[in-house]
């Protein structure tokens, strides 16, 4: 438990700092109230609006832990949203639309996994294919239009409320818990980390890396499918051109802020989810603060840069060194070394 806390402490502190910063510019930011039987307020908006990136970040964390990357998730969102909207549009009902969309997501993941694990194409190239082609596929499904529908059940997925909380917030929280339990209560997490650190050695230890890699890309596809259902339900229409556009980058950013190395290995889904909330807090904060829109991207970039700089190992080493030196000079040149070296 303490190990977990130590792992996510930098992310929690960063989130806290961002929340404080936004509150300075928009004082009402942290207030939450009831409107009827549902919670309203900016924190709730963050939980809701952060859902797509948070969901993508779950799958992305696992993919990145295997030393891969999945650039296609934004396009997969568009495909799955389009498939679900098309199913509902034809009157097949939500009972068919959801399994079809999730199936489409799994299929996309299977394709990526096949390219990466079987054909051994570099993940960034392999998933780039679907990233580019995916929107085209989604446009074929929607015939190039924004495919709108009026199915209340489907809209509920994107904009409904359950027990006071928005459905999208439930979706990512539940998905995060399920994914966390699955990877940590089974051996999946260990095997993923092992493959990410040293694929060759893992294979020689008997790890079936092919199945494992295909599995993580399929999980990523599944997460993208859920995210696609949510954004499609939210606007009651499948927008093939814009659904999930650039969200793969936010998802990668969330994983990076969450402290999982892009070189694979140790990962934390919880930290990635906090990373997603940090990003969404910044997004929502920028909208609420009322700056002219020309500043949006610059502000976001500066904040993200600051966060990543604070987490940079070299900078923190330097900061520690600086603190040590200052303490040493404070205590006088002759004083013994005050800082104990960490045991090797």
């Amino acid at each position, binding site marked *: 438990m303490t190990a977990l806390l130590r792992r996510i402490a930098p992310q929690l502190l960063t989130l806290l700092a961002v929340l404080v910063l936004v509150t300075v510019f928009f004082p009402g930011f942290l207030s939450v109230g009831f409107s009827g039987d549902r919670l309203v307020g900016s924190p709730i908006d963050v939980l809701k609006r952060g859902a797509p990136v948070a969901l993508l970040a779950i799958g992305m964390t696992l993919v990145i832990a295997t030393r891969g990357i999945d650039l296609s998730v934004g396009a997969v969102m568009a495909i799955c949203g389009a498939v679900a909207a098309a199913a509902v549009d034809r009157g097949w009902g939500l009972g068919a639309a959801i399994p079809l969309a999730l199936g489409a997501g799994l299929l996309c993941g299977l394709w990526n996994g096949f390219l990466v694990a079987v054909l051994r194409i570099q993940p960034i190239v392999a998933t780039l294919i679907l990233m580019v082609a995916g929107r085209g596929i989604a446009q074929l499904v929607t015939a190039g239009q924004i495919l709108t529908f009026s199915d209340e059940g489907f809209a509920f997925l994107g904009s409904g409320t359950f027990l006071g909380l928005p459905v999208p917030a439930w979706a990512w929280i539940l998905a995060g818990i399920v994914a966390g339990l699955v990877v940590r209560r089974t051996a999946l997490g260990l095997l993923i*980390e*092992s493959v990410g650190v040293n694929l060759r050695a893992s294979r020689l230890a*008997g790890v*079936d890396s092919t199945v494992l890699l295909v599995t993580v890309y399929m999980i990523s596809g599944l997460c993208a499918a859920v995210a696609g259902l949510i954004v499609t339900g939210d606007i009651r229409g499948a927008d093939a051109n814009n659904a999930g556009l650039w969200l793969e980058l936010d998802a990668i950013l969330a994983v990076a802020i969450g402290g999982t190395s892009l070189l694979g290995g140790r990962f934390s889904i919880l930290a990635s989810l906090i990373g997603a909330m940090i990003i969404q807090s910044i997004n929502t904060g920028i909208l609420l603060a009322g700056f002219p829109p020309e500043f949006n991207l610059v502000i976001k970039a500066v904040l993200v840069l600051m966060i990543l700089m604070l987490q940079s190992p070299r900078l923190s080493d330097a900061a520690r060194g600086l603190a040590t030196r200052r303490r040493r000079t404070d205590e006088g040149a002759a004083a013994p070394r005050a800082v104990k070296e960490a045991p090797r």
Partner: protein
Amino acid sequence: MLLEARGLLKRFPGTVALDGVGFGLAAGEVHALLGENGAGKSTLIKCLTGAYRRDGGEILLDGQPVDPRSTFEAQELGIGTVYQEVNLLPNLTVAENLTLGRQPRRLGLTSRRGMRALAREMLAGYGLDIDVERDLGAYSVAVQQIVAIARAVHLSGKVLILDEPTASLDAREVAMLFEVVRRLRDRGLGIVFVSHFLDQVFAISDRITVLRNGRHIATTEAATLDRVRLINLMLGRELEQATTHGRTAHDAGAEVLRAEGLGKRGRIAPFDLSVRAGEVIGMAGLLGSGRTETAEVLFGAAAADSGTVRDAKGPLDVSTPARAIASGFGFAPEDRKTDGIIGDLSVRENIALALQAHRGWARPIPRAEQRRLAEDFIRRLDIRTPGPEKPVGQLSGGNQQKVILARWLAMNPRFLILDEPTRGIDVGAHAEVLRLIEEMVAGGMSLLVISSELEELVAVSDRVIVVRDRSHVAELTGQEITTDAIVRAIAAPGANLEAAE
């Protein structure tokens, strides 16, 4: 002396890669540099070419001390290097590759005509008749190799270092390359030739220097050296006329496994292997002779393209490591860092990994049980670690090796392959690993031990298989097992050592 190194010292964390090594190269000679893996050949070359900064010693070129800080500086000084993998650009033309960085200019622009002329001039005297306007990648590796040499000679002009230049050439191409090397030697260049093909070394070299464990062992005229003596120098064993098998044989039981006609084209010729319960099979051979390749086809790390493996009950599937493991095999590879340990993961996770992979992801080994397993092996194998949660990458080499042994012992395989189990570990750990081998065999496990340490093989093996030229060429049993006999078997001149394939 054209190029001379005195008392070169190079340390890496935990090891001394060069320990006061001296090396002298005369103008107009081909000087072979030999040694097993980890002997210090490549470190020496990298110090000479500025790729590494040395920690001590001096380098003299034409009697003047030099201190190249990069391969570029070394080139400027006159020391050029050509590596096994040609490091030119296959998608540029031959002329562009040759003149890159010093294209002839006219009116400030690259002159294609000037470039062609310069390229032809540079290639003159190499006996190559090629179109310099075609992409380099369109030509064979041998031609590319010669183009790389031409470039290096043109840029540097005094010393040419050839690092395993023949590794991917066939016999005809080797002959072509050697023709070029002889011409350059006759022009007065000093040439350093690194190779582990002994026939080639004898064919081309004037002098031979042998390194072992980061130390200079010997420098002799090639003409006065014979093959057996050279191998002894490389493996560090003086010819022992009367060394006999160190101890009594294990009580080998019935045959538990049999490989028939197992092989993979280009890696290891088909071989038969019979394994009995509780015996140690030693495997000896020079680097690249096919010993690791034997292990790889047995374990499915490189799937065999011929032959079968069977036990008393029937055929076994060893086409992938996971399947070989399911058949009761284990494999501790030669290169621990890249093939063995999962550096960032803990000792506990590394020990549990094979067992967990075998059980499948859905049947996790409970954390408490993993811990018990790890603590048990830490005690039994005396693994020096602050605890089971320490990342294994931070342990010493010997302790990493023990962690990998623990990983396999946890599986309790019937047949375990140990490739260079004692390489790069200190003396104490060395003895412990040998003790562990005895323990495992006493428990009925069968072992295949691959090693360059001949005394070690003599001490532990019930049988020794000698590999040469990607074939199993000899099998020694009982009293036949002596370092002398092994060296002779390795040294027996092969039909064609040059042609790898």
